[in-house]
């Protein structure tokens, strides 16, 4: 099959101009002998991969691993320091939704603006305008300024415009991070449509459920910026290996007095794993670092299925916590859940506020019997002749 994108020996360095953010500093530094040297931040070194036509290609990696940088290089926003990126086909320039949206303009004008950035002519936009509005379910709001829209409305509008793009290659960056369940359903339908039309899609995400559902192959970027392309099932297990029981780095943006440092899952044999047999007993071990003055904390446990259906949600109120590191064990006896990917999310609360949200845990449940549906039914049956 033909290649849509070929990346050969790509390297990217960011030039950090340490010595001069302003002309004043620049001129001052000229006179000083030991001026600071320009630092280069190496992001990628000699990476090569190809994406075939019609492939649904995932890019997965941790925060800050360079996923978005890679996407921007593919989109031509950043230029590679060395190496070649060959694009074969028309590329959708959109990395994010709603690029160029202007809050001061009305919804209508923003549609025209956004669509013209997608390369549509004015006539063409006028033709598809009604469809866009209808799809976004924003009929009657189009003359309102964008700044008066709710964020959900803005996303819907942006999405409705973006899916009109008539390109061969689409670059999508975590659009699913925003929007409610109904919106995500729409996204999924759109992805299904793209798959059917055999479009080339490059999707950056860290949701393994989405990877498993849509992607044909996955590119992994690990901590050392090495990249490797996997098939989907390999990718999922690799992701679990990398993330299982890993100590979480501190969120630099939110220093909280109490946090969930890591979470481990154990099966009925008390092996640390992320793959659980159906109806097996699951032991969850939470390591909670309590630096707050509270002697008890509350924990919310939620379990989400595919498409973010909430399956479980329960609170443990005011569990006693000592100051420092605590180990908390929660045991879930036999969940009647069928095979699939499930996301576990834990919330940590004090009396007044939420301290932490732990949301990087994906559990895989394997049912050896061939049932369909989300739940494993418990059923009996009988036949009786009626006279």
């Amino acid at each position, binding site marked *: 099959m033909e290649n849509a994108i070929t990346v050969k020996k790509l390297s990217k360095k960011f030039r950090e101009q340490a010595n001069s953010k302003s*002309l004043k500093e620049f001129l001052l530094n000229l006179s000083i002998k030991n001026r600071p040297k320009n630092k280069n931040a190496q992001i990628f070194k000699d990476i090569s991969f190809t994406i075939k036509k019609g492939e649904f290609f995932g890019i997965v990696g941790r925060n800050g691993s360079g996923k978005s940088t890679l996407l921007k290089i593919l989109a031509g926003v950043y230029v590679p320091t060395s190496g070649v990126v060959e694009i074969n086909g028309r590329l959708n320039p959109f990395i994010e939704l709603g690029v160029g949206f202007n809050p001061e303009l009305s919804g209508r004008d923003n549609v025209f603006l956004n669509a013209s950035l997608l390369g549509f002519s004015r006539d063409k936009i006028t033709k598809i305008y009604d469809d866009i509005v209808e799809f976004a379910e924003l009929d009657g709001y189009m003359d309102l300024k964008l700044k008066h829209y709710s964020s959900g409305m803005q996303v819907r509008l942006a999405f409705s415009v973006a899916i009109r793009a008539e390109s061969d290659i689409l670059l999508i960056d975590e659009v699913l991070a925003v929007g409610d369940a109904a919106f995500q359903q729409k996204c999924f339908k759109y992805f299904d449509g793209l798959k059917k039309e055999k479009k080339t899609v490059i999707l950056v995400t860290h949701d393994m459920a989405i990877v498993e559902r849509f992607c044909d192959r996955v590119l992994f970027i690990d901590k050392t910026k090495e990249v490797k392309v996997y098939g989907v099932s390999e990718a999922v297990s690799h992701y679990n290996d990398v993330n299982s029981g890993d100590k979480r780095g501190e969120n630099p943006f939110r220093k909280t007095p109490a946090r969930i440092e890591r979470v481990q899952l154990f099966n009925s044999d008390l092996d640390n794993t992320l793959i659980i047999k159906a109806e097996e007993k699951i032991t969850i071990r939470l390591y909670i670092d309590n630096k707050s003055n509270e002697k008890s904390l509350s924990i919310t446990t939620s379990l989400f299925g595919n498409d973010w259906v909430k399956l479980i949600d329960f609170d443990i109120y005011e569990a006693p916590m000592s100051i420092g590191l605590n180990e908390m064990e929660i045991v879930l006896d036999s969940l009647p859940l069928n095979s699939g990917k499930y996301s576990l999310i834990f919330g940590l609360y004090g009396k007044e506020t939420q301290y932490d949200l732990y949301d990087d845990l994906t559990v895989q449940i394997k049912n050896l019997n061939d049932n369909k549906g989300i739940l494993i039914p418990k059923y009996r049956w009988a036949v009786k002749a009626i006279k």
Partner: protein
Amino acid sequence: MVSTDFKIRYQGSLLGYAWSLLKPLFLFLILYIVFTKFLKIGSDIPHYPVYLLLGVILWNFFTDATSTAMTSIVSRGDLIKKINIPKYLVVISTVISAFINLCLNFIVLIVLCAINHLPFSLTWLLVPVLLLELLFVVLSLGFLLSTVYVRFKDASYIWEVVLQGAFYATPILYPLSLVPRRIQEVLILNPVAQIIQDARWCIVSHDSITFWSLTQRLFWPVPIAMIIIFSAFSIQYFKAKAKYFAEDI
């Protein structure tokens, strides 16, 4: 792309747009009162209001266009960081929308000519050529300044001071004949001064001192050559740096 950028600018707010049109007119009014009623420089010049307004609107276009072009790349950074758009369009579209302002200001100027009973002459038809020359100068400066501004955010203050100085070094409010001939020859090398004086020659009076009248005829290509060399340099510089705008903003 250019048309979308227009939209952003013009649909922003009607009042804001009216302001940018009125700004040179207010400046003109102030200068007119100061220079005819208090300083009495302007009162000996025939058709001084037209003479002054012409200088003011050309200068206003120059400052407005170069300053907005300077920050244009950085202020559209949200777009440049996300889409691979031709960067020069961003600069061009800001300059062009300032240019549209200038054209509207010219309508006001024509009205003022009529009020002043300034007779129409065929040389008026040369003005568009001068405007094109000015547009070219401003575009080149815009490319240069916007590139510098991406790297050095304090360059805008420096440019402001330069503009302030250049305002007095350019014969906008005073007639060029007020300064000694040696200095006239230096001042006229400024392309903006040369354009303003040429425009005055075309519209107001053939007595206006121009590059042409100051030097021998043989030197007429000098201003043009200067501008072409300068713009070639600016465009090269812009082209070399434009690739990295998305990272450097």
